[in-house]
């Protein structure tokens, strides 16, 4: 009676009343989460700990209730003598506990648990207020170094109530060089940059953005924007007190943009002509020319092949070639990306003759299809949600299986003729939630669900390729930006989530809008990025530039990819690759899949195309690569090849000219006076003949092993 009066009195304030009976879902679970009891390192791990298993970060209140109250013959809670319950004795260290002391006896937590036990261990029920969202305030703030603000997290429930959960939420700063946060949720700005404040509470999260200028905001000197991208980025620099590097030289720019758009080095005659050209718009014209080259088609077919996992090891050889040719055509025709995605998603028929049905040969279950589709087309790593609530994002198992359900009707029937199969849609097939075994309806992330009718993929395709759907555009523009700039606006490129905010969200949104509004045009997007001054900056950071270059104040040097490097070495030595079984003259960027043998490409991180992840391509350096470039017969044979570059220069042109030619062929620039003098001196030190040829070879070796060659800068 008294209890109801208290409830009635407090309810009007719109705040969850201090309930005399602790609510398992909304009072106990958050405390267990805050204290780390159900973390992945303790009882929330795969195997639990000490025989006690809780759901990871408390996403399953019902299961956790069973574990606490019913398991272990009910010894964890003692209704008759609550203080004897293991659930309070262990974490208060009244008896040994592997996790140490989590709270003191007679602390608020201890009393809360005791109160819950004493009042009869009320279970979670459907009528409990259910958490809907969490927000964190202030949502965005600019701070000076040393400045402090208090951050608050508020939980909102489905009955319209809310509660301040600052003390119980996990609030952290995602970039601790920029700011730090105290246990009382006070943020202190430490250094320049952008920091996301992430508040997590019971499976919901919210992000706030803090900006700390590196220096007092100031106009950006000497920077004329080329396009909208430059305007937005310059505004951010101004806000942050950053200054960009100077513009790249012409030779530098040409090498860079040739590699980024076509995967190959520019030719000497093109470099000379470009540098000599005095027209104001030469860089834009160079970009246009590159986008029309056949190498552009090959190189982006390769990139798409990585994304869609085109490989005979899984698709079969015939189907792989079909897919490869379809990609080639699509790149040549600059097909709108939304159309390409639609066609892939809805493919059916015979992969050996139907161009892209083989996409589904790489996914052997609805779950795998969901993962591949979400990563490739949405940049979303739904995979974590397969087994538990995604630890950083709101995706639940229901979302995961809801997406998988769109693919539940895919059936692959082997054909009567050898090696073929037909992809069709069967009239039956469901996805069931692994725990409840309930049928899960096809449902789009964060949205509607649909009946199992006809080809459920139609609904997914319609949603995904709808002009206003941000997912498709965001995924692709972020990737294009990342491939060109060396760092995506969101990193990793395939880890797009609310809790992983973009470095400059304004740029991302502008690119998305442009992409959506202009027919999902890949060439247009690449052109815009290549024409931006931000892209064309020098690759040497200013003295005070932030090293991680999150704000693009200089062009981040990046190692040439495996195929780019092999192309570059082949053209630098004039010793092209030959691939047995493939037409003469096929070059590395034209290879259809990673099953074409190439130790070089494997050594330099070519992806196997078996896992749908950008990380499959490994551009990290290592000792094996250094050894390969330094010592392999493979490279040496190219350097010393009979019809190769050194062979065609030696004794046929003056030494100076040979040196200039070698520099153009490798570093895409002429040598400086000092470099020429040094190289010529080394050659002349040797007696004429073979010995001098060897020095030229050594010079080529040196250029191929220098960082200026190995990096795109």
């Amino acid at each position, binding site marked *: 009676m008294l209890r109801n009066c208290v409830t009635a009195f407090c309810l009007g304030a719109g705040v969850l009343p201090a309930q005399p009976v602790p609510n398992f879902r909304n009072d106990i679970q958050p405390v267990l989460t805050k204290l780390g009891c159900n973390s992945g390192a303790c009882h929330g791990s795969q195997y639990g700990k000490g025989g006690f298993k809780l759901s990871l970060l408390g996403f399953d209140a019902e299961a956790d209730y069973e574990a606490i109250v019913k398991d272990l013959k009910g010894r964890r809670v003692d209704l008759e003598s609550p203080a004897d319950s293991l659930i309070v004795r262990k974490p208060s260290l009244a008896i040994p506990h592997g996790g140490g002391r989590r709270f003191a006896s007679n602390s608020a937590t201890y009393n809360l648990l005791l109160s819950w036990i004493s009042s009869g261990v009320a279970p979670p029920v459907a009528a409990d207020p259910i958490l809907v969202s969490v927000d964190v305030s202030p949502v965005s703030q600019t701070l000076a170094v040393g400045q402090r603000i208090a951050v608050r997290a508020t939980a909102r429930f489905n009955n319209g109530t809310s509660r301040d959960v600052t003390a119980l939420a996990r609030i952290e700063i995602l970039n601790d060089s920029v700011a730090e946060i105290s246990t009382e949720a006070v943020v202190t700005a430490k250094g320049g940059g952008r920091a996301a404040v992430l508040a997590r509470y019971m499976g919901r999260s919210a992000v706030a953005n803090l900006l700390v200028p590196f220096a007092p905001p100031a106009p950006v000197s000497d920077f004329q924007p080329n396009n909208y991208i430059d305007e937005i980025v310059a505004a951010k620099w101004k806000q942050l007190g950053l200054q960009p590097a100077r513009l790249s030289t012409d030779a530098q720019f040409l090498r860079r943009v040739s590699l980024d758009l076509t995967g190959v080095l520019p030719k000497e005659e093109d470099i000379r002509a470009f540098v000599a050209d005095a027209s104001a718009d030469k860089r834009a014209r160079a970009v246009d020319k590159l986008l029309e080259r056949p190498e552009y088609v090959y190189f982006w077919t390769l990139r798409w092949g990585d994304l869609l996992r085109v490989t005979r090891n899984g698709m079969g050889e015939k189907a792989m070639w079909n897919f490869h040719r379809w990609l080639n055509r699509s790149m040549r025709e600059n097909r709108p990306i939304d159309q390409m995605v639609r066609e892939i998603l809805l493919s059916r028929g015979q992969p050996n003759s139907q161009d892209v049905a083989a996409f589904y040969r790489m996914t052997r279950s609805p779950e795998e299809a969901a993962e591949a589709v979400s990563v490739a087309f949405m940049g979303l790593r739904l995979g974590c949600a397969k087994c538990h609530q995604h630890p950083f994002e709101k995706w639940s198992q229901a979302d995961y299986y809801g997406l998988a359900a769109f693919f539940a009707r895919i059936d692959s029937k082997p054909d009567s003729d050898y090696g073929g199969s037909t992809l069709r849609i069967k009239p039956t097939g469901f996805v069931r939630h692994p725990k409840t075994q309930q049928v899960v309806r096809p449902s789009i992330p964060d949205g509607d669900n649909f009946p199992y009718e006809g080809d459920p993929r139609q609904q997914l395709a319609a949603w995904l390729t709808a002009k206003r759907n941000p997912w498709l555009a965001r995924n692709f523009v972020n990737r294009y930006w990342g491939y060109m700039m060396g760092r995506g606006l969101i990193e990793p490129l395939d880890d797009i989530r609310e809790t992983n905010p973009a470095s400059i969200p304004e740029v991302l949104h502008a690119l998305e809008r442009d992409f959506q509004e202009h027919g999902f045009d890949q060439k247009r997007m690449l052109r815009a990025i290549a024409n931006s001054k931000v892209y064309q900056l020098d690759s040497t950071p200013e003295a005070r530039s932030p090293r991680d270059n999150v704000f693009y104040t200089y062009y981040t040097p990046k*190692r040439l990819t495996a195929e780019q490097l092999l192309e570059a070495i082949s053209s630098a030595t004039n010793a092209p690759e030959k691939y047995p079984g493939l037409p003469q003259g096929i070059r590395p960027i034209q290879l259809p899949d990673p099953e074409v043998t190439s130790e070089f490409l494997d050594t330099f991180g070519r992806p196997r195309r078996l896992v749908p992840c950008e990380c499959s391509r490994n551009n*990290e350096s290592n000792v094996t690569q250094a050894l390969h470039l330094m010592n392999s017969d493979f490279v040496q044979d190219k350097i010393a090849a009979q019809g190769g570059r050194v062979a065609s220069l030696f004794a046929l042109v003056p030494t100076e000219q040979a040196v200039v030619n070698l520099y153009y062929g490798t570093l895409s620039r002429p040598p400086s006076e000092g470099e020429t003098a040094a190289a010529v001196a080394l050659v002349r030190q040797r007696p004429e003949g073979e010995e001098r040829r060897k020095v030229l070879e050594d010079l080529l070796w040196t250029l191929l092993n*220098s960082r200026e060659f190995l990096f795109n800068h």
Partner: protein
Amino acid sequence: MIDLQYGDGISRRETLRIGSLGLFGLSLPQLLHAADDNRQKGRQGKTTSCILLWLSGGISQIDSFDPKPNAPLEIRGEFKTIPTATPGIHFVEHLPRLARLTNRFSLIRSMTHNQGTHGLADQLVTSGYAPTPSGVGVRYPSQGSVVSWATGYRDGVPPYIYVGDISGPDGFRKRDALNAGVLGAQYNPLEIGDKANDIGFRVKNVTPPNGVDLERMGSRRSMLQMLDKWQRGTESHLTKLEEVDAYYQKAFSLVTSPYVKKAFQIDEEPAKLREAYGRTMFGQSCLLARRLVEAGVRYVTVGMPGWDTHTNNFSDMKDKLLPVLDMAYSALLQDVHDRGLMDSTLVICMGEFGRTPKINAEAGRDHWPATQVFALGGGGIKTGVVVGATNERSEYPTERPLSVQDFSTTVYRALGISPDLVYPSNENRPMKVLAGGEPISELIA
């Protein structure tokens, strides 16, 4: 003047001493580690090395170290059993040498896990973590990679080497057992191939290529130092560029390191010893592993494929697999003992899972992770001990069921690495070397 530097300026006198190993009774470890430093993170001053004999495919426990003579024929199979030097312990008849040497290694007969898929099981057993089932999951580092991270290069010697074959369409899967995953690719092993048995064996790319001698290598290096000026001497300190520099330094020191060179010169071994290991790829790779450990390599994995006997289990085991293993493993144990390396060298022999008790229709056995045998000993792990037992039909452990985590904890302790050590993943997420597991007390010396 060409300055061909040895990794750390070893004097000519020391070079001579290395050349006459055995003559003066000096072992490489004694030479190298006389001035051991504390640079190793978390190594607790230990310098124990590990040789892992990786039986890729999953060795059948019944047809090797845990036979079941009393089970029905369709389980016990074709092989007879023989007694070993340990009373009450029997092996199959095709492991006679190992049977005599049971005082030199211990057995865990009760290893058990539930991962029956190649690749995933490889990762589980070598990393101590269940791999995440999703495609875009976390790949945990192998023991060798963790050791590599904790040790680093010393005197040009790579800390972690793989001797075996990686090529071929499923070479990538073999890498699952070897690689560093999220620890970072720089901690992957140096792969030196499987040609240790070839005449004139040469490790690829560690010696200069055809037509280039060491002197010319030196000229090239000087030229590179002179001309590779881009972004040098500036304040820019771009990490990726510095990394490439570091790898080139390591590569040069590897190429010029007298220790590494010597280690690879397997043809220096007396013919009699080479024959004792067996003139097979695996036998000679085991011998090479011993040399590598002596040169300071901290973790050597020697790969032996072929154990995935879904068909013709008995003929393959009898003709191709067991005799090779028996000879090579026993020779290695004997050799390690004779050279006084037992206290500082842990030798492990295992695969990714066991095999089905019930023989299938193709006279083979399929995957059975519930029961598995690991052999290990030395380097602080006791020898001559048999831990655990399985039921009469080798279906599940009956005594002392042990997890992969327990095994990993025990190994890391022996190697002086704390399982609680935290490393940053390549996306800067803090990761623990191990998350759980109890050291196996019966094996701790």
